[in-house]
């Protein structure tokens, strides 16, 4: 009425202008600009100093952070069951059954095997010659991981894997062998029960990720003798 509504609106925006910055709805990615207090807190993670000590020790860093020149790596927490890129694969666990390739709805996994001469208890193990995954068409459904009977294939947890060329998105067997394998907990309750987090913990070896304990020799002997 007679312009009072306009003034009311102006007051609301003014209130928003002078409120502290904690109301910002935007999370700064991939790094965050910090002031001196937050910077000191970030440094305390690995060295036990108070804020005043931090200022005395690093005066240049403090001034820089006051001007707004310092940014720290800061990520949102990510669930350990996240289905992402960097597939994890263990050669020692894989028998070359190609269940993953059969279950893949897009048919982007290509496996070629040959006889290896290694005999397991149940039968012969194949040598995997080619293991290609075309990540450019992958939709991260995780069906290949669900299909794997020997816990050899795992989802990864990365998500910033953009490349300049489409060919670079193909993962071949050397890539899978040489990478540090940090498997995601997707469809792998044995990892989740150990509280494993691919983004915080290190890489896992092939004998740490199995669903079952490796049977001892006596167990094996009993099993075969009963039969």
């Amino acid at each position: 009425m007679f312009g009072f509504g306009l003034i009311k609106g102006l007051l609301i925006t003014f209130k928003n202008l002078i409120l502290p910055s904690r109301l910002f709805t935007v999370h700064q990615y991939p790094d965050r600009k910090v002031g001196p207090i937050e910077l000191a807190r970030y440094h305390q993670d690995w060295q036990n100093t108070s804020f005043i000590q931090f200022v005395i020790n690093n005066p240049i860093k403090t001034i820089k952070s006051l001007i707004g020149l310092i940014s720290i790596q800061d990520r949102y927490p990510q669930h350990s069951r996240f289905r992402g890129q960097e597939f994890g694969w263990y050669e020692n666990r894989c028998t070359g059954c190609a269940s993953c390739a059969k279950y893949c709805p897009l048919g982007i996994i290509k496996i070629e095997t040959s006889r290896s001469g290694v005999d397991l208890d149940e039968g012969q193990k194949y040598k995997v010659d080619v293991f290609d995954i075309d990540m450019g068409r992958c939709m991260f459904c995780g069906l290949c991981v669900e299909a794997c009977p020997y816990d050899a294939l795992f989802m990864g947890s990365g998500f910033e894997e953009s490349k300049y060329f489409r060919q670079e998105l193909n993962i071949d067997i050397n890539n899978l062998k040489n990478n540090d394998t940090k498997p995601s907990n997707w469809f792998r309750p044995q990892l989740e029960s150990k509280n494993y987090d691919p983004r915080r913990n290190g890489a896992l070896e092939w004998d740490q990720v199995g669903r079952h304990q490796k049977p001892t020799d006596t167990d094996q002997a009993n099993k075969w003798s009963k039969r």
Partner: protein
Amino acid sequence: MNINNFQNIINSLIPGLPTWLVFITSAILISFIVINAVVITGALTVWLERRLLARIQSRLGPNRWGPFGLFTPVADLIKMIGKEDTVPATADKKIFNLAPIVLLVPVLLVFAVIPMSNNSFLGQLNIGILFIVGVTGFNTLAVFMAAWSSRNKYALFGAMRGVAMLLSYEVPMALSIISIVLTTNFLLNIDGSNLSALSLVGIVQAQKIPFFILQPLGALIFVTAASAEMSRAPFDMIESESELGAGYHTEYSGIKFAIFQLTEFLAPVATAAIISVMFAGGIKGLSFIPGSVILVVKIFVIVLIFIWIRATWPRLRVDQIMNFAWKFLLPLSVINIFSQAIILQIFYSSDSIITINELWTIAFINWILAGISIFLLAKLFGHKGRDKNIPIPSKLANMEFTSE
């Protein structure tokens, strides 16, 4: 800083030059400095506006490039210069290329008459306010040139609305200036100074109390009409980006678009300079601070108010804008002129002098008058006073069958 200082410096450095050469050299030098300072101010205004708008809307705004994102305008400019400068095939190329310049130059020309000290940069112009009214009228032409020559229907829509709006808001703006000139003439005559009432220096000289306190109605009309003249929110009808793409500069790209963008953010600075000279006392203020600093601070505060208004109020409709100009601002400015003339004549004729105490009395009367006249006009022309059109319900729409 003045042109005389530059002439003295050049004369002492190279004695024996002809007078006209010295004048031209110093004029070019001073305009170079002033134009660069103004353009840099415009670039910083871009940063300030984006940052403050973001803060009001709970965002962060540009914060990557330089401390607090201060170099963002530089990055923007480099990007825009790098872009291809496209001209539509059916465009009128001469006018298309001329339009950004016609829009930019008047905004820069305004700063030629702003008194930063007791004089403006290029000496005192004794028809300064007429010069400003004439020069700022050019933006109507520039907007229409840009829209017509680019052969784009959305650009033309924007320009047609814009020209109607700019022309109608020029009337109350000029009328509010007349009341200022009237008051200045009274006060200067009493002082016995030989300054012209039309010059900005004279207007600053006459402000024993700032004119926005003495004439609240005139200040309100001028600020409203000026924000419509530079087509900012809530009057950004020309380039209403949610309706018309980008309005009159839809077809522009590259450096020409950069000039449009710069002008859009320079206009509040220029308008703030005019308002601070005409209504907020210009260089007058605290005596121990230099006048130019006071003027810059006043300009800054008024620019902040413009940004605040832009962040708050939504855009008006076309008919609302025209109604507001012709039904509200025009009667208000007529009331303003007549009331100022009558009140000043009454106070002047009693003892042929207007003291500062009498000025405060006049200010008090004017504030009451402003309240009453706004109230009455809102009653007369406001939407509550109008008859509402009650829609007649259609029989078909109800879908009810009545058996006879």
